[in-house]
């Protein structure tokens, strides 16, 4: 009968070989850890630079443009006014992009404190729909909604859940050139399910994998939305995860539109 491993004495030479091999493996891991740590430090200093210098520069010029528009610097010609409006809009977009990036980084580090309260999610959806209606219609898109009767009370942070809704609706508007956007809200077995269906560029199988990842833009997303940062849906995912919910996307393929779903527990 063959001897079992348990009863076989370990050869000291073999033992040393295994220990040394394990050490080398650990050493490789330690090197990788150091690399990641160093990248994290670089990222930290980059964030500091973005927050203090880049955002500061945007804010500074924003107030100059705002001052030109509100008469702080006296009467200005219509031409200057037009440039100031464009500059102000551009600065606001720059600041919004930086905030999105910084928020995502703070969420990753657990620095965002969610103010979890009992709220009516339906109210947030209705409010967001009202706010986005003009933007959709100005692009010639119909914004339709279907809210079924039911309980939509959730435990959540109103401000951040609103950010999620804004993001999903704005994406649907940005990535649709024509057609309509359908928003459905229902309570299924005590799970609140929101879907935002668009007639936009759709999502390829390859893009689906990186859709909710940090900086994960779709391959053709910038063709339709040149301001795409790749941080919007990543932020959505982090917020929904903090609410113990789920978010995902479905699409039949490029050019066939997309549907984004989010699910939260009803209370």
């Amino acid at each position, binding site marked *: 009968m063959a001897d079992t491993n348990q009863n076989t004495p370990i050869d000291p030479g073999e033992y*040393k070989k295994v*220990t*040394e091999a394990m*050490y*080398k493996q*650990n*050493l490789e891991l*330690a090197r990788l850890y150091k690399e990641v740590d160093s990248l994290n430090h670089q990222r930290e200093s980059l964030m500091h630079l973005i927050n203090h210098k880049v955002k500061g520069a945007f804010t500074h010029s924003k107030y100059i443009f705002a001052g030109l528009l509100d008469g702080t610097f006296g009467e200005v010609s219509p031409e200057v006014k037009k440039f100031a409006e464009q500059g102000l809009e551009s600065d606001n977009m720059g600041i919004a992009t930086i905030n999105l990036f910084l928020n995502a980084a703070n969420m990753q580090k657990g620095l965002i404190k969610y103010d979890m309260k009992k709220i009516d999610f339906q109210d947030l959806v209705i409010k967001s729909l009202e706010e986005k209606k003009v933007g959709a219609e100005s692009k010639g898109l119909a914004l339709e909604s279907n809210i079924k009767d039911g309980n939509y009370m959730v435990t959540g942070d109103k401000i951040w859940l609103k950010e999620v809704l804004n993001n999903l609706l704005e994406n649907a508007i940005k990535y649709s050139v024509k057609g309509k956007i359908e928003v459905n809200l229902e309570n299924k077995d005590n799970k609140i399910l929101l879907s935002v269906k668009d007639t936009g560029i759709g999502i390829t199988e390859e893009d689906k994998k990186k859709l909710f990842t940090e900086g994960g833009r779709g391959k053709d997303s910038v063709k339709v939305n040149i301001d795409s940062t790749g941080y919007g849906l990543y932020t959505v995912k982090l917020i929904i995860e903090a609410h113990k919910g789920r978010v995902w996307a479905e699409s039949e393929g490029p050019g066939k539109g997309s549907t984004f779903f989010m699910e939260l527990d009803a209370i």
Partner: protein
Amino acid sequence: MNATLNTFAIRIIKEQELVIGPLAWSEARKVPGLQVIDEKKGEVNLQDDDPKGIIDKLVAQYERIFGKASHAVCHDAVQDLLASMSPDQVPSSLK
């Protein structure tokens, strides 16, 4: 001089800790003449009579169990300090 060698010991143990975890401190405790004062703060004390010899023993302690790769780790941990030392000050295991 002793202060520099103290730094050597701390750097070596901490570098080994990155690879083998708390085992790095337990092995350091086995080295005669090396006293671990506070593991968390990373404080050690080398006995006055032969601090260079203690560093050699520390390097050998790791090498005996983990092989040549661990010797290279010890060397890397103090490489920048070695550059500013005269050869007779450097423990022979790190030359």
